[in-house]
């Protein structure tokens, strides 16, 4: 791909005003390796305040629809942690379809089946008790997928039957207590039963696996590679000293362009320091960049004290 003035102009616009970043983007283009430069957006969440008696511990923001791995952007139509490329590659063994997170058995996700290696013919032997179809710890993202007709109720996360099959506890969202919710561990290539792996730095680059998981840098890639420097999420947390509210800003989220939907999921982990028990708050949003035409999406924190449910809240933008 040749750099033209038009490109440069578009890139300057896309890079949300960051000159330095624009220069880097150009450098990458010159190598001619990138088939398509993903657009990046920012999220800015205001008025975040932990629940009374709790402390803020972690935040994970993810675009479940797209990402960058091995220097190349990828799409995940099922939004389930498996890229279209991988899913198509292993489809003959597992019978996966691209358009959703579940295929043959609606109660077990393709991600779980892929990692466990349960071949298509064996999937009929996966059973789930009727009492285990939902999520006791409410750590699941549940939404209507309107890309198919009629719209389909879709679960992103580990339902209780999956957790119990995997030896995890349905009443907990973080079995090994490393502060990464079990489902995100699977998506990041970590073991939800191993409490040590979050702190490791597999590639020896000084960034530990938790930071990488959070920033969507594949844990087996160096954080110093050019594409990971360019497309790793960046978190910035500020505290308003007067109200004690926080503003959490996440920049550099790669998204599918134009009229394509992106499912953005937000997980916040809080801890009660007295009991060391952790709590999870989740929200999601469907963002179609062209329809809104924004690069920065601003919203107020969803789990205020007068809101009944703090999990699985849909966030909408004006």
């Amino acid at each position: 791909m040749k750099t033209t003035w038009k490109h440069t102009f578009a890139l300057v616009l896309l890079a949300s005003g960051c000159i330095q970043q624009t220069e880097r983007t150009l450098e990458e283009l010159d190598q001619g390796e990138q088939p398509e430069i993903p657009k990046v957006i920012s999220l800015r969440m205001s008025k975040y305040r932990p629940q009374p008696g709790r402390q803020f511990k972690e935040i994970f923001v993810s675009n479940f629809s797209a990402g960058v791995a091995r220097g190349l952007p990828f799409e995940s139509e099922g939004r389930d942690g498996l890229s279209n490329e991988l899913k198509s590659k292993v489809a003959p063994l597992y019978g996966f379809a691209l358009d959703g997170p579940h295929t043959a058995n609606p109660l077990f996700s393709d991600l779980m089946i892929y990692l466990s290696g349960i071949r298509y013919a064996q999937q009929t032997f996966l059973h789930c008790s009727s009492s285990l179809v939902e999520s006791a710890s409410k750590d699941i993202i549940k939404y209507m997928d309107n890309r198919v007709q009629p719209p389909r109720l879709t679960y992103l996360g580990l339902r209780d039957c999956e957790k119990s099959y995997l030896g995890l506890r349905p009443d907990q969202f973080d079995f090994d207590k490393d502060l990464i919710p079990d489902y995100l561990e699977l998506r990041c290539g970590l073991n939800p039963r191993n409490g040590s792996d979050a702190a490791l730095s597999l590639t020896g680059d000084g960034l530990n696996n938790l930071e990488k998981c959070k920033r969507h840098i594949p844990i087996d890639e160096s954080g110093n590679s050019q594409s990971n420097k360019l497309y790793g999420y960046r978190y910035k947390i500020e505290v308003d000293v007067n109200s004690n509210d926080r503003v959490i800003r996440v920049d550099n989220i790669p998204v599918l362009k134009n009229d394509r939907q992106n499912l953005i999921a937000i997980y916040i982990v809080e801890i009660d320091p007295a009991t060391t028990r952790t709590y999870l708050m989740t929200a999601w949003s469907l963002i179609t960049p062209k329809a809104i035409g924004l690069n920065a999406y601003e919203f107020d924190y969803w789990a205020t004290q007068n809101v009944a449910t703090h999990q699985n809240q849909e966030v909408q933008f004006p």
Partner: protein
Amino acid sequence: MKPITFFKKSISLSATVIFGFSLLLNACRKPNLEPLSRVSPVNLQYIDVVAKFCTDDRSVARQKVKYLFVLDHSRSNQPGIPDPATPNDVNNTDPDGARRYGPMVAFINGLIPDPNNLTYFSLINFDTTAYVPRNMNGFMQDPDAFLNQVVRPDWIGSGTAALPAPNDRGFTNYQGALELALTTIRSDAQLEALLPSDPPVTIQYHIIFVTDGAPTVPSGTGVVTQTFLGEISPVISNLMNIKNDPIYKNIISGVALNTAYYFQTAPDAAAQTLLQQMADSGGGQYLEFAAGQGVLYQSFAPPARNIKMNLADIWIENQNVIGWEDGRILADFDADGLPDEIEAKLGSNVTDSDSDGNGVNDLVEYRTKGVPCKDAACSVAERDPYAICDGFAPTFGANNKVQFRRSSQDGLNDCEKFVLGAERNNFDSNGDLIPDRLAFVNNIPFIAGTSGSYLDPYGDSMNQYTKLKLGYPVGISQRSLVGFIPRENSLLREKDEQADIDCYRYSAKKVAVLRGGDVIRVYLIQNQSIISNKPVLKTVSKSWRAGEFTVTFERGDFN
């Protein structure tokens, strides 16, 4: 501000006084202020180490599926007697055992042998009480033996092969049956826990509970029905908790209680509800088999699986260059972890990792006793015999040199592990994914229950884990090191490989070496991606030849 003004006013008169003061202060502080700054006393060179490898394919993550059949032998299976004691049972449900045993034989015969999903079988019967049938002991792996020695005789009962008549009598004690299932699984798990396997194999216990009616048991002269909350649910919760037991949790991947209800005319709603509740709380499935239908055991079978392996961590070590306790980088010819200079002072042999030949290397003896050998001359005659390790079956080499097995791959032998309080069969006793020997040599806690790799005792913004990764000696602040070059690590995933395995190229630049012949060791740690948490270690060593710039480990080296 005020005190300072006051200070100036009163004392600024005399410069001599201040001078005297500062001298005094310096004199007091001086011994404490000496910086712990080390220039490497040896002439280090730096090389690159490259390791190319792939993760293991899925077959390594094997599982054992252990089927425990629990069969109803209550009297209602048999014809003829309308039994007032079991009013809920519909009579004559399975007089010749064809519904219970026929499909079981077919199911077991139909299992296709799969080396990654090994199957085992056991059988429990219950009527008024629960019991283990003749010839049944724990779990059996051989399907033919299980069928011929246990299932068929139990099926035939008091009849003949042509006309089987299972011994069906009495009541329907669910609670007793579940308690016996619990005992059977516990004692099997105990045995399994004693036999660690490498590569790791996890066990899935799969109970198939088969009955024809509600749980009625005699009580005094009358009859009572066991209830879910009263008698049944507590036992199920004990069954489900086995896998959370610290002793078993690494070997048991799951316990599932499946329930099957076979009836003849109309199903009993109370039995249906109860069996459904049991399967729900037991993480299993409930199925019904109406008039004459055999129990379809294959519907309960868990799916065969082949778990993906993930790369968990990589370590690279030059076994002949030691970051000693005082922060200095020293040569260690015999790679026992005790540097040559220290060995020379202590009187042990610089060229023999176990100078007195008692099977416990010089560093282990030094760390546990303060001396590498019992006597100053490190003589064989005067050495510590380490009789406590006799149980580990030592062998004796030339010069009466004792050798112990290395059950774990990390480099410490069984006796050394025992003496240090580490786990013999586990390369990483505290689960921090730093292999025990590597942690031990570098003075990082490695015994189960201890941790310390993420601490930063020198306050130099670098934890022990990172120092080890970057090749720093961990016993000194990295800021006080003079002239030492840390490693530059990088991991590259190789493109266009199979979807199931990941292939990598790890390179550590600037690995410190001293002399030709230095042994570079690569530790590769993999873990299952899901279900089980049992990391496995592979180690490979190569010598560096003086003059070479790179030591390369090829994929084949890791097989």
